[in-house]
């Protein structure tokens, strides 16, 4: 059965009559609809259309910040979007409904086709039709070799071309006709096999993605130069994981970030765009294991046991030391600042919890602006290049209650100033200072001093495992192989029929038929013909007479049989 036949079989009857009433019949009707080619086509389209909104509307699990932004700007619209799941298109029920329908349709389509194909592969190819001259490619000539020799040669030739043949011995003996026979061959069943493999592989990919996502996880952790982390859930800044993720499966490695280097394009039209990010880490595969030095670059993650460690985004962490009036250190060390633009104008805060007993009895909060290459112009202080060419720290400071004890989680990048008051200078101006590396400034009212010690870089690392990716890749490659077979293998049949003619000659007819597009069937039939003629002993394979000047013994009707050389048959 050809794919077209299958398709015809799979097609539903015209849906002009209402579905039958009994539940079983209705179910059968729905099933037939669902597995029909037309519905598959519609579902493919629907899935494509359904995927569009997810690329237009910001998505929660891709860009939550953009979603938050959108909500603020369009509160009323957002409500509707929430109702429709438009912020989570790819996990929305209606999206799932479409692809599950497609999956069901796919399976419902593949199974019966596989069974049919299996049977077709084992069945003998259909015997030669009575009138070969009606086939799209047809040759007819006479040779001196005997009919059986010609048939044997044809069999050998077709077999060597990997045609499946009908059973040996199906020699037609039509009474009242001279002895003869025919052989039928079929090639290219790989096309249907490939098609089935392709569709099956699509199912494999979809299932592997779905199951894999249950076990996978993705976490981020921000690591300043000179510090490190051990791979465990409590160390992560953020974690998203599948339902069946088990924290005990995390590989127990640890990392120390020795150096994170970043370079940017220094001239030309792409001035300031990233040129090179490279992290040098000391890596310990598990507690007690020897330490190794590794580098992580963009596109070159560190792989640990199926878990990948990637560079996400970098930044600077200025180091600030805060002392009280006596010179006692209240806080020190680098604090990560968040870049606000492509030149790494970065903002951040240093929270100094002091407590009622120490110092002035009040917390101190410092708000800072770190500029790797600082300029101050009419647009205020800003950075003009992401590498530290003229690093400067602009600060202002607050005193009061940081609110760290009230149990509310706080951002480490923002100061909650509701319980605080900004420092003022003697003339009542808000306290501000611009510091170069190594400079110190005194806080007003005898609160102590702030020193800008320097800076390090930090990098946000992503730690994640894409569970099941091997299966996804395997499925995708299988799909590709199937697709290539399905698109390029041509399904074709060839027949050779011989009949002893009066005298010593044997009339040979060769015909070909092709069910799929492309290729050159004419050339193939010619090659088959030349091939089996050359297999005939000595001279007997020479064509003694060309073309079908008159209808053959079996072609009772005077078919119009093409040009003189038999290149084209009429249809």
């Amino acid at each position, binding site marked *: 059965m050809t794919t077209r036949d299958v398709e015809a079989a799979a097609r539903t009857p015209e849906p002009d009559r209402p579905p039958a009433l009994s539940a079983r019949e209705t179910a059968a009707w729905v099933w037939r609809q669902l597995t029909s*080619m037309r519905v598959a086509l519609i579902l493919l389209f629907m899935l494509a259309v359904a995927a569009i909104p997810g690329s237009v509307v910001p998505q929660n699990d891709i860009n939550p910040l953009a979603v938050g932004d959108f909500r603020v700007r369009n509160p009323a619209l957002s409500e509707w979007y929430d109702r429709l799941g438009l912020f989570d298109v790819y996990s929305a029920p209606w999206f799932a409904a479409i692809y599950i329908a497609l999956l069901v349709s796919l399976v419902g389509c593949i199974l019966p086709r596989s069974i049919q194909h299996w049977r077709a592969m084992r069945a003998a190819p259909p015997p030669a039709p009575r009138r070969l001259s009606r086939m799209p490619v047809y040759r007819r000539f006479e040779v001196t070799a005997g009919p059986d020799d010609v048939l044997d040669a044809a069999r050998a030739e077709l077999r060597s071309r990997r045609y499946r043949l009908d059973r040996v011995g199906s020699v037609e003996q039509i009474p009242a006709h001279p002895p003869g026979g025919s052989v039928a061959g079929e090639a290219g069943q790989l096309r249907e096999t490939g098609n089935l493999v392709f569709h099956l592989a699509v199912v494999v990919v979809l299932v592997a993605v779905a199951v894999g996502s249950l076990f996978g996880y993705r976490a981020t952790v921000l690591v300043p130069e000179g510090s490190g982390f051990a791979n465990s859930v409590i160390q992560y800044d953020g974690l998203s994981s599948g339902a069946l993720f088990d924290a005990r499966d995390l590989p127990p490695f640890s990392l120390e970030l020795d150096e994170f280097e970043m370079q940017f394009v220094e001239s030309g039209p792409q001035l300031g765009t990233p040129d090179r990010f490279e992290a040098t880490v000391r890596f310990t595969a598990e507690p007690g294991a020897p330490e190794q030095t590794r580098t992580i670059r963009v*596109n070159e993650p560190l792989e640990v046991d199926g878990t990948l460690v990637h560079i996400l985004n970098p930044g600077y962490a200025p180091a600030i030391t805060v002392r009280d009036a006596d010179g006692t250190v209240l806080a020190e060390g680098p604090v990560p600042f968040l870049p606000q633009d492509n030149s790494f104008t970065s903002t951040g805060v240093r929270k100094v919890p002091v407590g009622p007993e120490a110092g002035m009895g009040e917390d101190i909060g410092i708000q800072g602006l770190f500029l790797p290459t600082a300029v101050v112009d009419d647009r205020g202080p800003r950075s003009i290049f992401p590498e530290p060419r003229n690093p400067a720290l602009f600060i202002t400071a607050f005193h009061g209650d940081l609110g760290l004890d009230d149990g509310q989680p706080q951002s480490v990048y923002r100061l909650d100033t509701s319980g605080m008051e900004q420092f003022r200078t003697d003339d009542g101006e808000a306290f501000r200072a611009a510091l170069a590396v190594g400079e110190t400034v005194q806080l007003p009212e005898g609160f102590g001093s702030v020193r800008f010690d320097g800076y390090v870089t930090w990098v946000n690392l992503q730690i994640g495992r894409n569970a099941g990716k091997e299966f996804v890749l395997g499925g995708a490659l299988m799909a*590709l192989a199937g697709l290539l077979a399905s698109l390029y293998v041509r399904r074709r049949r060839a027949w050779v029929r011989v009949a002893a003619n009066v005298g010593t000659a044997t009339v040979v007819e060769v015909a070909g038929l092709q069910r799929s*597009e492309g290729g050159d069937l004419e050339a193939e039939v010619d090659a088959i013909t030349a091939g089996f003629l050359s297999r005939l002993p000595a001279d007997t394979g020479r064509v003694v007479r060309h073309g079908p000047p008159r209808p053959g013994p079996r072609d009772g009707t005077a078919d119009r049989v093409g040009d003189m050389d038999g290149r084209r048959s009429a249809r």
Partner: protein
Amino acid sequence: MDAAALGEWSRFVVAGAIAAYIVAWLAFCAETAYRLRDRRVAAASTASAVAGAPTAPRLARVGGTAADGDNGDDPVPPHAEPVVADDQAERMAGIGYSVTVLATLLLGAGVVLRALSVSRPPWGNMYEFSITAALVASIAFLALARTKAGRAAAVWVVLIVFVTLSLAVTVLYLPPGPLVPALRSYWLVVHVGAAVLAFGLFTVAAVVSALQIVAERAEGKGATSGFATSLPASSTLDRLAYRLIAIAFPVWTVGPLILGAIWAEASWGRYWGWDPKEVWALITWLAYAAFLHARATAGWKGSKASVVSLIAYGTVLFSYFGVNIVFNGLHSYGGL
């Protein structure tokens, strides 16, 4: 010569190619015009010669019987040659073809110079992608132009190529420069390279599909004059579009989807993340899968399938222009 100078040279050479494409386009337009005129004359004269015969209005197309067969390998579709010799049309076609060869060579040189100026494959930003895709489309067209069905697409393919190039050297132009680190990978070579290749082929296929629709409608009406009569049989165009898509579809499967996923994992740590570009690559893939299905579904062959092919091409354009310009995803390397 330094990178900037090479880049400038490349731009000059591409501009030269644009000029050549315009000349080729005018020649192909003239060819079409001559053919239409000849056909009108032929139709008029035969109509008067066999006035009253029921076949008269179709005379311009006699001989077209074998075209609807199964093996459409016949490079010359079965149009009857018009009674009036169309020497001028042939000459114009010849000029158009030669100038297109010249333009393609120039464009090829421009693309190579660009590659030299940036020391990497020339598809790192929208400008480079556009000129390379235009080159692919142009070469694909030249390969097809040996058949009459391919030649029918000439006016339109050349038009699209020169519009793309004109946009490229004006709006999309970026002087040579290094790539952001994320793009510096051999995956760029194969992933984007495959996308460029598929893009060029889809473009030619879309032109052929559009012509298929026009031809099929004209055949339905039995038109004897007008642009459509200069086209090959709709079934020939249908097969040509199918073959182009049958080549481009696996390329799209490999490049944007499979290799894209592998690279995404290396670069971002996940092989699929519903980034707008990824979503649109998938939408394109689904749309062309729908096209392949449509062609195999009874009642969808011919112009309905061609409509699907055009819609699918719309998604290609969008995943290329739309996503780079409209959205700000991880893939925003377009350089705009």
